[in-house]
Each structure stands twice: as C-alpha cells, then as structure tokens.
C-alpha cells in the first residue's frame, strides 16, 4: 500500500525565514499532489495542487515542487509569519475509473513560526 512520510519532527523557525516541508512517498506516483493546512480543532484547508507533469507551482508566498523520480514534494513558505503556524498535510490524489479521486494523506508536519 502507498506510504507517505512527512517531516516527523515539528519545524520551528524564525519569522521572516523560509520554511521547507518535505513529503516523500513510495510506490506509484499520483496524478496530483496537494498540500493542505490544518489548524488545531479544524478541518484541513486546501492550499496548492500540482500535477504529475509539473515541476513547480507558486501561489503568493507558497511554492511547491514535485519530483516523480525522487518521489518527493517540497513545500516552501517564504517570508514566514507567526500566522503561518499550523500543521501542513501532504496528500496524494489518485484518479480511479468511475470513482473520481482518492486522496491519501501524510501524517502532517507541525510548523511553528516565532516572532
């Protein structure tokens, strides 16, 4: 079965620095790779999606890369702010005939940005 591994340790960085989160997976590459943000006691919120044939995607201060050879995605938050503190989830989306998409989540990485 597919396994997804994210940074197991919480990430603590200083405000203004770039946070880099890692997502590694085994087995077959997904059609899409997504990143979600989750605050304590809340549901995940979609941030970015990248297709398997794309190398990089940007949205404001966020950047995601996708390397299907390494089976890895990197998620960057530049000029980080305390408000960016949250858990970030990597999710692999597989397209299944007649079923739409199936999303498989990693365990998440907790990011803490200190002022």
């Amino acid at each position, binding site marked *: 079965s597919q396994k*997804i591994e994210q940074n197991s340790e919480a990430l603590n960085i200083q405000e203004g620095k770039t946070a880099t989160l890692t997502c590694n997976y085994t087995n077959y590459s997904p059609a*899409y790779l*997504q990143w979600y943000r989750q605050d304590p*006691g*809340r*549901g*995940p*919120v*979609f941030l970015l*999606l990248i297709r398997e044939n794309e190398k990089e995607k940007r949205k404001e201060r966020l950047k995601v890369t996708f390397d299907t050879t390494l089976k890895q995605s990197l998620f960057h938050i530049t000029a980080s702010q305390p408000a960016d503190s949250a858990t970030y*989830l990597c*999710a692999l*989306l597989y397209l*299944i005939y*007649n*079923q*739409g*998409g*199936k*999303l*498989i*989540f*990693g*365990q*998440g990485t907790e990011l803490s940005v200190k002022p």
Partner: protein
Amino acid sequence: EAEVAQSPRYKITEKSQAVAFWCDPISGHATLYWYRQILGQGPELLVQFQDESVVDDSQLPKDRFSAERLKGVDSTLKIQPAELGDSAMYLCASSGQGRVQFFGPGTRLTVL
C-alpha cells in the same frame, strides 16, 4: 463563501452507545467523503459517495459503522456500538468537478 456544515462539533459518549454525525456538503457537490483523523495522524478515508451511491467503503468497519446519503445531498455517519478506539475527529468533505476537497470543521468524538 459556501462551506461544508457538520454537527455536532463535539460528542462525548460511553462505549457501547450509538452515535450519529451529520454533514451537509457545499451545494452542487456530487462527491461526499467521510474521514477519520486520529490525533497526530492524517485523515483516513472511511467512505466516499458519488451522489447517493457508495463508491468506496473499503476502510469502513462495517460491523459497527454505517453511512448513508439518501437523497444525494446531506449524509449521516453512524457508529453502533461505539468503542474506546473510535475516539477521533470525524471529518466530512465534498468536491465538485475539480480535484480539490473542501472540508467541514469536523466532529470531535470522545468515547469513555
């Protein structure tokens, strides 16, 4: 902005009791998902509906869990009887034509 609604937000029950969670997806979204999230882990899919039909319930413990979406709109997830190991966050999500899932706030279940 349209949101996925869930109720209750919190539920405390004793083991062997029955519990039920309700979800109202974003209007027009044909696909509805129920996930379970244990603290410190990512969400795990329990059941996926396309309109009123179940398309994936391979991870649903069918001896005690059931889910329905009778009119293809809102949905109910039931656990009977609840066990201590069922304590978790139960998340509902919906999606339309795109590849993005929109999640509700979740129901935090505690089984005593």
